[in-house]
């Protein structure tokens, strides 16, 4: 068997095992392990799996994920998330899909704290899902909007993905950050438009509440003043340079703990519960990340990605057509590879080609990060979706993917806009320069 054939077969096996109800992490990890063992040896594959497992739990950059989760669970303990959505309901509840819109805003806000989609989806999901559910939101709409909203985190500065792209492509990261702002704003607006359209077509998806008088609205805002202080301190501290994005997780957790104390909720049992739930959620996420990386390493070793990319280069297209084909290739690969691996594998190949076709590398960075992030929400391997499933245990995966579909349509529209009007990305850095 050639490596490419092993790669193609493994994807078929992967899909079959997923459908049969084997835990997703185990499917990814075992198929990756077996494939790697076929390409190298059982010994080598075992060692590689051990390295991936250890590095995932011991690396500082990934290690901050449970700390972000702890912050979310502590906010929950403090009742802060309830008050936040209470306020959102009083302010926006009389509008169709108001709370889903608030969740998108929450994702954007959290995205400004964390550099990652996964952390954004997991943290905001923990806070927002139970609140939307209590207010009668359809599981498809609430989980779908957070899975999609989570991808905002990867374009909003500080963005881990853009920093990595800047290093590979040797492009100024400050320019990339500036270039991301208009696209990410249009992305968020498109998501909100999707929510409004969906709720207009089927009002049962997001029940509308009665308009509340302004006095009550202000009162509910008063109750979240301390939360606002927390958010301002974290985002402000990041902006001013008191701490780094990775340190923000610990600072946020300490502040959330103070919030609990201020509200008289910091009891030993409550703290133990928050910690236990943090560990449980983190374990689900770690297992999936380990499985996905083992699978990614294997697929990288098959050379499947380089074959697909070679096909695009051989086709000799013009810039816009080439961009469209790259979207298809990235979506295909993104359905089975994790985002970082995909970027490292494809950017060095596609970037020179697109620059040769006259596209700006800054534009390409926004385009490629945007497209790769789509892989986080589309089937079969959509990490954001899996993670949200891990949080909202009783919502079937199919429902979440169904909920994500309308947002995927908006994503495609957004990417088309990015291809047809590169100025959406390039205008702002031009103005700032």
């Amino acid at each position: 068997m050639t490596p490419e054939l092993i790669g193609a077969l493994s994807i078929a096996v992967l899909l079959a095992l997923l459908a049969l109800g084997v835990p997703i992490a185990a499917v990814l990890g075992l198929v990756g392990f077996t494939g790697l063992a076929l390409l190298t040896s059982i010994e080598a594959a075992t060692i590689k799996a051990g390295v991936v497992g250890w590095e995932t739990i011991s690396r500082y950059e990934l290690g901050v994920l449970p700390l972000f989760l702890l912050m979310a669970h502590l906010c929950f303990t403090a009742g802060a998330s309830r008050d936040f959505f209470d306020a959102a309901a009083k302010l926006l509840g009389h509008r169709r899909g108001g709370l889903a819109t608030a969740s998108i805003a929450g994702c954007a806000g959290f995205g400004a704290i964390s550099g990652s989609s996964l952390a954004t989806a997991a943290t905001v999901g923990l806070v927002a899902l139970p609140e939307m559910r209590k207010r009668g939101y359809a599981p498809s709409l609430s989980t779908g909007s957070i899975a999609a909203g989570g991808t905002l985190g990867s374009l909003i500065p500080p963005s881990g993905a853009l920093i990595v792209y800047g290093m590979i492509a040797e492009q100024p990261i400050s320019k990339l950050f500036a270039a991301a702002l208009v696209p990410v704003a249009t992305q968020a607006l498109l998501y909100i438009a999707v929510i409004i359209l969906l709720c207009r077509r089927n009002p049962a998806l997001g029940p509308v509440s009665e308009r509340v008088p302004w006095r009550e609205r202000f009162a509910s805002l008063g109750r979240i003043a301390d939360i606002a202080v927390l958010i301002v301190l974290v985002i402000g501290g990041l902006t001013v340079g008191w701490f780094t994005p990775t340190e923000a997780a610990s600072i946020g957790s300490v502040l959330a703990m103070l919030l609990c104390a201020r509200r008289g909720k910091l009891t030993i049992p409550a703290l133990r519960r928050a910690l236990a739930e943090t560990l449980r959620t983190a374990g689900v996420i770690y297992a999936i990340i380990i499985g996905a990386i083992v699978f990614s390493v294997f697929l990288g070793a098959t050379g499947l990605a380089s074959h697909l990319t070679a096909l695009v280069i051989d086709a000799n297209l013009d810039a816009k057509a080439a961009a469209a084909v790259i979207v298809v290739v990235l979506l295909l690969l993104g359905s089975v590879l994790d985002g970082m691996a995909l970027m490292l594998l494809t950017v060095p190949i596609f970037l020179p080609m697109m620059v040769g076709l006259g596209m700006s590398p800054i534009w390409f960075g926004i385009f490629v990060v945007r497209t790769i992030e789509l892989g986080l929400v589309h089937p079969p391997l959509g990490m954001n979706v899996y993670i949200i499933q891990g949080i909202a245990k009783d919502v079937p995966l199919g429902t979440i993917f169904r909920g994500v579909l309308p947002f995927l349509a908006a994503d495609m529209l957004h990417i088309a806009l990015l291809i047809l009007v590169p100025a959406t990305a390039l205008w702002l850095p031009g103005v700032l320069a």
Partner: protein
Amino acid sequence: MSLPPPDDFGEERAPQPLPTGLTGVAVALGSVALLVAMATDALAVLGRHFGFPLLGALELVQASVSVAGACAIVCASAAGAHAVIHAVLDRVSPASRAVLAPAGQLLGAAFFLVLAVGCGWIAWDLRAAAEATDLLGIPLAPLRLFATFALIFTATLFVRTAARRA
């Protein structure tokens, strides 16, 4: 449609009992490790601004999160929280489900066993390497061993669930 009364909040998340036995130990250790990581990082930030730099804080955070991470995997597995696609499983006959459900759990056990063997093998390879962090000299061998045992224990949790579902 009106909102549910405020008192309803929090009830839907029926508090699960905290686990006992080895899993309980994992929860306790993981919790302490998380708090240590949080406090260390936060103190390092404070120290930086108030003139008592804590060099090596990063290493302590790293060591703590590795313990927390291993415990987290145990906790998630003990709670049966791992993400699964139910679409087919929910539609097949009870007889097929009686085969598929434990088979899936056994594959889960196999996955964590592979990770455990790999992790333990590396620890064995490096047994004489005196692996330690640069600044604080935190030894890594115990941390690797801890992760290995946590992964083995996780595999046994899956086997137990498989036996229960068979």
